[in-house]
């Protein structure tokens, strides 16, 4: 990874986006589950963040088949 020739591929980028988006999605939902005493449910900022995490994971998924092409 730290060689002069190494570069991230579309698959690497896809994995990063997929994992990051999925963890973000779970984390945001987790705020509501763990912080059960909080009122108001999922607010507008959380809804937007959930949407962006889902989009990120989806884009990641679509990048996986592009394989070893440089990102």
């Amino acid at each position, binding site marked *: 990874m*730290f*060689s002069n020739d*190494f570069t*991230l591929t579309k698959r690497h980028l896809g994995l990063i986006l997929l994992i990051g988006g999925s963890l973000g999605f779970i984390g945001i939902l987790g705020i509501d589950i763990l912080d059960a005493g909080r009122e108001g449910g999922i607010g507008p*900022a959380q809804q937007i963040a959930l949407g962006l995490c889902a989009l990120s994971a989806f884009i990641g998924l679509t990048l996986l*088949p592009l394989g070893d092409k440089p990102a």
Partner: protein
Amino acid sequence: MDKPIFRITNRVLMAAALLVLLGHLAVYAAYAANLMRFPFDYDQGEGFELMDTVFFSRGEWPYRDTEVFPFYSSNYPPLFHVLAAPFVWMVGPAYWYGRLLGFLATLVTAAAIGFAVYRDGAAGGGRLKLLVAGLAGLAYLASNTVYHIGPLFRQHASMVMFETLAVVVLANAGEIAHVRRRRLALAAGLLLVIAAGYTKQLAIVTALAVGLFLLIRQPRRALVWGGMAAAVGVGVFVWMTAATNGEWWRQAIVANINELNIQQSVGLFRLWFSLHGFLIVPAALLALYELYFDRLSLYTIWFVLAVGLNGAASGTWGGGDSYFATAIAATCILSGFFAARTLAGEWPFTENYLSRLARPLRRFGPGLLRAGLIIIPLLYLGYGRATLHLPTQQPPFDTFARVLNIRPNALNGFYDSARTADGQFSAGYADIGHFTTPDDVQAGWLIVEQVRAAAGHVMSEEAGFSLAAGRQVITNPTQLLNLDKKGLYDGGELIRLIEDRAFGLIIFRAQFYPPRLLRAVGDHYRHAESIVMNGFEYRLLVPN
């Protein structure tokens, strides 16, 4: 590929788009000249940026303890004010040079955008590519947001200039084969990122974009160069924190993290899209193209992060539409690339599952490229109409307003497409852009006379009146409010002075002070007079 009729129509429409955007430039230059002649605060808080400049010109820090007289501190990084400080030595405190620097910064940014589109937009050269580059640069200056924040005594336009220069320098730096030249380009680009950060904190988004780009292209280089840049940036930060007894950290960082109003962010996102949509769509298409069929460029990563992070932050207290300026610069570059590639017919699709899915559509390719000859100039014409703003009463613009049947919807007979017909606008959109009048100048001097005549100290929500009257500038209200919101402000000494009626005159505009200060003023001062300057009511209060 393209028949003469398409070529001729393209040239005519391109010339029309150029004319429209040059018209925007003429309005912008006239607005800048008008503001440079206006000797008082125009945008809320400009005077405090001038005061910061005065501090630096004396070799003093503006990051100070707000609990002791004169209760002043700044929350902005130093570079813009340091650059303006020599003007204080030459001509004393004045607004024109800060506004001139802001205006020039936008021109440099536009030139950098044009250069990027010419260099990286499509292979080959030619007059058409030069024209597209010119349109991309002019599009930046035509934006309603860039128009109204550019010629202000504020650091935002300079930050965007440093950010854009950094991105243009770094975009191809890794591909430079000559080792010494590559290192020079990387060093220069990263120094420009640091300069942007020390102009305004919001440039963190460009630092993130650059770091991410270097990491994707070559992690080793990202670590080595990122580490060196971080060492320089953090070194300066630690030195400033130590030199100001921690006030730099407290005032510019801790007090500057403000709460988010997501509704304001959403409203400003909608406004941004309604004004710049003609360029955002092609920019987004180019970003998608790079994601699936090419390598991600620094421009695209910058565009995505600037839109996402700065756009979200636009809903913070103290934020606003100006937070989209970086995204607008990135949008102009990417849409310029889209235009240049389309006009040159350069859309190679590498073989992958998506290009295979789209294979049946390939027969439409030549037709789409011919349509592009018409669509590209129409995009810039549409953008020129969507961002229309002009004074409707000052010659020569009044003639255009009459011919186009444009009616004013802002102060002083100004028309701004960001507003509704009855003058409403999104929360967070700056209520400026109109030209000042001789009556505004006269009103300003009337306030200055009151400041001069007042016995004792004067506390003014705008610093310009105190500076013009040769009085000491006392407090920076929005910074006191920032500190108060974080529970970092006591205010006991200032409240005691208010209760002792130590101020002969207090001037309010938006009343952006901590609530208990406003209560103390309400209890011990009475409204004596209101003077309207520049469309805003200045309330003059005297002791009970």
